[in-house]
């Protein structure tokens, strides 16, 4: 199978490339890039299937470090088939799924089950993240070695912060030996107890209990100190606060092995999105103030933040359309990430190349994956999009089972044209994989 994708603008931050190239693909791998689509004499494209994508932007397929696929256990919210379809529709070719399933992914059998389902029904690469503690209960360590052997790429008790500092220390010491990072969902559960949104003027106005930024900052600080103590690679999930960005920046300067991610929704929205008691804006960590949002954007530009991750968290509408304090936390993100981030590019908050880096080589580096680049011999995972094409966010058209988005009706630009995994066009969906 040989494929030549021609006519597009290639953006590959891993090679500092941005320009007109034809991408050659053979046997699911990148066979080379040809500048300005000019081929040496006698070496035409006769042997290739040609895909003309004139005017489109080509880049490595997006990698999401933070997705909830809900299978096993919560298939009414999402399953591996629907979640990977949503990923493909959003330009993602690799997604990391969190462990808060039922049963929890805290042992090798569950990891194997997820990978088996992904192989049978998934459209994109699925890399499971295992639990830190048994059953996410924050007591004994999960079967970390067994899960690494089965294929987990990191461990995290995401959704359930590890409150016990000693357990977190031991998790980091133990995990370090297996060469994968510990991902921290940084939240002090005592400080966030009962909290529903960011603590600030809006929460006071709405009479909704707030979650202070300090709930995140104290835990980030603790985990950075433990990373220094243990030498384990700490990855901070979904950074939301100014203090959090400052702590990570400072830790990196000190040479502590820490990386971090931020979500599109924390980059686009503030706590004002909760006004009117919109349960779709209820998420953890909460949408914070404009000051926090600007600090996150600053962190993207100065290299403090390593990756953009969606924290795609599908819920059924029944779990959302209820009293604000009873509604579940979380929002879907795979199918809205690109147009939302392009809005930041349009408003000059973020450069296109930086955006692509934070979705490709950035997250690949966090997990040390041979992905996220169009270097010769690397997997031919690609995303091809039109950054100018107008889109209106319409949750009824989502491929995810989740409809819970605060961006309903947003008019944005940026449409995924093709998603390619190992040289195969998986999006737009053919009738075969529909």
């Amino acid at each position, binding site marked *: 199978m040989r494929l030549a994708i021609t006519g597009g603008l290639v953006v590959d931050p891993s090679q500092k490339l941005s320009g007109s190239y034809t991408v050659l693909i053979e046997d699911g791998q990148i066979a080379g890039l040809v500048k300005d689509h000019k081929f040496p004499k006698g070496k035409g494209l006769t042997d290739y299937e040609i895909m003309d994508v004139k005017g489109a932007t080509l880049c490595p397929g997006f990698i999401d470090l933070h997705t909830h696929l809900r299978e096993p256990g919560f298939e009414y919210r999402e399953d591996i088939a629907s979640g990977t379809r949503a990923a493909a529709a959003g330009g993602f070719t690799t997604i990391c799924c969190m462990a808060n399933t039922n049963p929890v992914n805290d042992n090798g059998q569950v990891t194997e089950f997820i990978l088996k389902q992904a192989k049978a029904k998934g459209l994109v690469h699925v890399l499971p993240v295992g639990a830190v503690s048994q059953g996410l209960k924050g007591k004994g360590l999960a079967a970390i070695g067994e899960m690494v052997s089965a294929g987990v790429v990191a461990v995290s008790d995401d959704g359930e912060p590890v409150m016990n500092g000693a357990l977190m220390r031991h998790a980091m010491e133990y995990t370090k030996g297996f060469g994968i990072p510990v991902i921290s969902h940084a939240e002090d559960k005592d400080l966030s107890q009962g909290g529903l949104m960011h603590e*600030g*003027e809006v*929460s*006071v*106005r*709405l*009479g*909704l*209990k707030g979650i202070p930024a300090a709930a995140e900052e104290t835990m980030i600080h603790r985990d950075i100190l433990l990373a220094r103590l243990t030498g384990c690679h700490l990855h901070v999930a979904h950074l939301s606060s100014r203090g959090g960005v400052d702590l990570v920046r400072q830790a990196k300067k000190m040479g502590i092995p820490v990386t971090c991610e931020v979500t599109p929704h924390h980059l686009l929205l503030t706590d004002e999105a909760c006004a*009117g*008691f919109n349960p779709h804006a209820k998420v953890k960590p909460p949408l914070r103030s404009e000051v926090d949002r600007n600090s996150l954007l600053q962190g993207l530009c100065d290299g403090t933040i390593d990756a953009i991750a969606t924290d795609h968290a599908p819920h059924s509408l*029944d779990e959302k*359309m*209820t*009293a*604000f*304090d*009873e509604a579940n936390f979380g929002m879907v993100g795979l199918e809205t990430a690109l147009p939302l981030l392009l809005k930041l590019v349009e408003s000059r908050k973020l450069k296109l190349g930086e955006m692509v880096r934070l979705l490709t080589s950035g997250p690949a580096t966090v997990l040390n994956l041979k992905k996220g680049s169009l270097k010769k011999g690397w997997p031919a995972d690609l995303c091809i999009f039109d950054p100018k094409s107008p889109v209106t966010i319409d949750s009824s058209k989502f491929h995810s089972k989740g409809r819970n988005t605060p961006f309903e009706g947003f008019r944005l630009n940026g449409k995924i044209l093709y998603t390619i995994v190992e040289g195969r066009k998986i999006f737009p969906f053919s009738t075969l994989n529909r």
Partner: protein
Amino acid sequence: MSLSIQNLLSIRDLKKSDIELILKTARNLKEISWRPIKKVPALRGKTILLCFFEPSTRTRTSFEIAAKRLSADTINISTGGSSMEKGESLMDTVRNLEAMQPDLVVVRHASSGVPQMIANWICCPVINAGDGSHEHPTQALLDLMTIEDAMDRGPRGRGPLGHRPSGHRPKRSVAGLSVVIVGDILHSRVARSNIWLLKMMGAKVAVAGPATMIPTEIRAWGVPIYNDLKEVIPMADVLMMLRIQRERGDESLFPSLREYARYFGLNCETFSGAKPSVVIMHPGPVNRGVEIAPEIADGAHSVILDQVTNGVAIRMALLYLMCGGKEKNQKLF
């Protein structure tokens, strides 16, 4: 004249002209409660649902009496004894109730924002009768009416039969008055609604209490914060004492009721610095001896029971104005 709103969810939705219309109507309707036959046919044939998903005596009875004095049919719904006990969702319960064609729905709920959500789900008008820590707009309106009345006649307290209403408009407004709200501002829907309403009507509003119960963000609304009751009491024309909400179960907000009463309750010592003309209010239910000493709650400065009386009048006015009341029907009462 009619109201500019379809639902009463927050004081912030009201215009000044709405407030004036509500108070004028309430003063006209108040007199009905002193008639031998306390009923007019203004809302005959109208159905009003009283959905009290949180315990309430005062507000619920007040709404029910208000509706009945206007001849509306009232139905009481509460969580206990309703299909919500069987696990029916709030949205399903409300949509099923609406399918029976009520003319107006009154909602009380322990969660902030529920009346707003219900108003999004259904077509008929919704009145917020208190939602979580968010707002209690009808309480603020009855408080405003009570303050205006008290300023007009002086704070003499009420006689055994209450003040027979005259229907006239008080000469004094709340503009320029200093109103101090004392206590658990953090959890108080009454405080929020009163802050918005009284500030809109030109009063100076300050809050006082322990710092654990006062979110500093309210300074952004132009409301100064005092942590020392003795400092603020002498400047108050109106002292609004809030109930300590022991049911919230947040135990680290103050050390003990005894300590709270000593430093933040209105007792003979803290009260000694107050203006002679000061008016004392409390939205009820009162924790006697905690936020207010019994002799002050029952004393000459207290208008606590006038608040309750005015509550019926304010709710009659709102039901009338929001449930199809038109100027041309004025003769019905």
